[in-house]
């Protein structure tokens, strides 16, 4: 404990509550309020309605939500497989190639996502690989953006697992595939879940690259929210935002409930 006096602790808690309230809670409360507001002219809303949610759950908004979920699940799933594969393959390589590939994985997360979108647009707008205007380019954009997090999480997990487990498994007669399936991946499960959760959450909120590459008929929810609020429908946009957050949160809670025996050491 850093602060020992009762008064000091009270002050520390008060400062923390203020910071959390202003930075995290207030914007969330405002959006939630806006999503059920019919009219907001003063300091507080003057009229409440659920019409914005009714709008959000019908027509194009529902399609946007579906597009976001499908894109998030697919891109995160692919990134998880790819990131795990890369992390497993690279852990025993020499430092230089590993560092080079680390950079390759992490560059997309270090540049603005709109630049990633632009890069993909330029790269895949001409034959032989023409992806512009297809669903595939959206998945590729999300896959590129979230791959760093999958790779990073799995690499961190691998570095924390002592090689003894795998070596003992090998000595007992486990061939590489059996060892991977029965020992390595179960031990990595907490990190795999964390990697997928983070990737999914990022994908659900991704706007910059998507807005550059999305084809007609595959508008994700963030793009939709951006469009709706840009047209002045702030309350409808807020309802969609709440819907997006609740969906992402539901998926994350479901993932967190997967039993992880290896983590309960």
């Amino acid at each position, binding site marked *: 404990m850093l602060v020992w006096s009762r008064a000091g602790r009270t002050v520390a808690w008060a400062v923390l509550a203020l910071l959390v309230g202003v930075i995290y809670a207030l914007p969330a409360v405002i959006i939630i309020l806006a999503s059920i507001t019919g009219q907001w002219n003063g300091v507080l809303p003057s009229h409440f309605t659920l019409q914005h949610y009714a709008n959000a759950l019908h027509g194009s908004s529902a399609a946007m939500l579906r597009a976001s979920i499908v894109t998030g699940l697919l891109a995160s799933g692919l990134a998880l497989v790819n990131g795990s594969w890369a992390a497993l393959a690279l852990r025993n390589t020499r430092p230089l190639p590993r560092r080079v590939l680390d950079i390759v994985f992490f560059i997309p997360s270090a540049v603005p996502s709109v630049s990633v979108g632009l890069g993909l647009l330029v790269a895949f707008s001409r034959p032989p690989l023409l992806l512009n205007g297809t669903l595939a380019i959206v998945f590729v954009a999300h896959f590129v953006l979230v791959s760093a997090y999958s790779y990073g999480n799995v690499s961190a997990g691998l570095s924390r697992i*002592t090689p003894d487990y795998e*070596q*003992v*498994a090998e*000595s*007992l*007669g486990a061939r590489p595939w059996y060892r991977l399936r029965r020992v390595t991946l179960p031990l990595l499960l907490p990190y795999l879940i964390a990697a997928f959760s983070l990737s999914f959450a990022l994908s659900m909120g991704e706007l910059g690259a998507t807005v550059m590459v999305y084809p007609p008929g595959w508008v994700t929810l963030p793009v939709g929210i951006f469009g709706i609020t840009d047209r002045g429908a702030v309350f409808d946009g807020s309802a969609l935002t709440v819907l997006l957050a609740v969906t992402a949160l539901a998926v994350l809670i479901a993932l967190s409930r997967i039993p992880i025996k*290896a983590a*309960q050491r």
Partner: protein
Amino acid sequence: MAEAVLGHPAAAPGLSVPFTGPDAAHRGIGYEGVAVAYKGTTVLADFTLAVRPGEIMALIGPSGSGKTTALRVTAGFVRPIRGRVHIGGRDVTDLPPYARSIGMVVQNYALFPHMPAYENVAFGLRARRALEATIREQVAACLRMVGMESFAKRYPRELSGGQQQRVAIARALAIRPQVLLLDEPLSALDAQIRLTMLEELSRLHRSLPTLTVIYVTHDQTEALTLADRIGIMRDGRLVALGDCQGLYRRPPNRFAAEFLGRANLLPVTVEAEDAASGLARVRFGAVSLMVRRNPEVTAGQAALLCIRPHDLRLDPPGPSANSLAASVSEVRWKGDLHDVGFEIDEHRLRLTAAPLRAPPEAGALVNFYFAPEDATLIPEERRG
């Protein structure tokens, strides 16, 4: 004597190599000139050793001496840059670890945390696609052997250190390996449980007499208690090898004398030898002493006289006992023994004995004694 003091020629010039050819060596474990290097640094050099079938061979040495590397070479986790490894008559040098039929227990046990004890023990059998009935039977037998049958459903996190160790041993034995590799398996246990586990390992080996065991440790007590033979390693080389008593009573070099137990070492010159009695007369300063003869040290040569602390006495053990006068530097009572420090000239010696009724005072000048057969000569040129 000859068998007890073998090491590698490069480590100790003049020592013969213990490896006696494929017939004798390869039925157990055989290492022929095995060398391992990491990034140009040699961590195991020309390691040659024959472990007999059913034998417990302890490899001891300080950190970085190469003992764990030798174990990892056996398991196949490290590939030697030179030399061959044989297990049960088969050259396994180029085989992957999973094809070597080896049971292994490591320092932290490495029980799979996501499996209960039963599944941990069954792991090797399932990996080898054994029939379910065989798995049930074998797992039950192994858990029973280590006294853990009632803990089969427990996860490793629900077991104590000693229980985890038992499960790890059962897991290693379930595949009926030819060879069991134990890498400091007791170092994570507290002193009392360690003693119990040592006894259990000893009992276990008596019930599996054909199992060849390599036991890596830095704890000399574990090695002396459990092993049939001990190999002492230093700087990646095997510097001494022999049966426990022989190596302890007649260490081949200074390093072996000081690493395996405590040793009083005095510089002496051999004056005369008597092959018939097996004794030699040596000179320490102005004093002549009779000690056990070492054929490798001849008259006129300098040598180190090695006497274990418990072989020194404050009363003469017999009429032929040697006597030296020394001043007492310290006296320590340790419950079940007294530890007395002496100084002769610039040499420090130590005597341990059952609690003394009248221990000497620090600073007092006393005579101490030792029997000729309790003192051995170490060639001076092999000084570690």
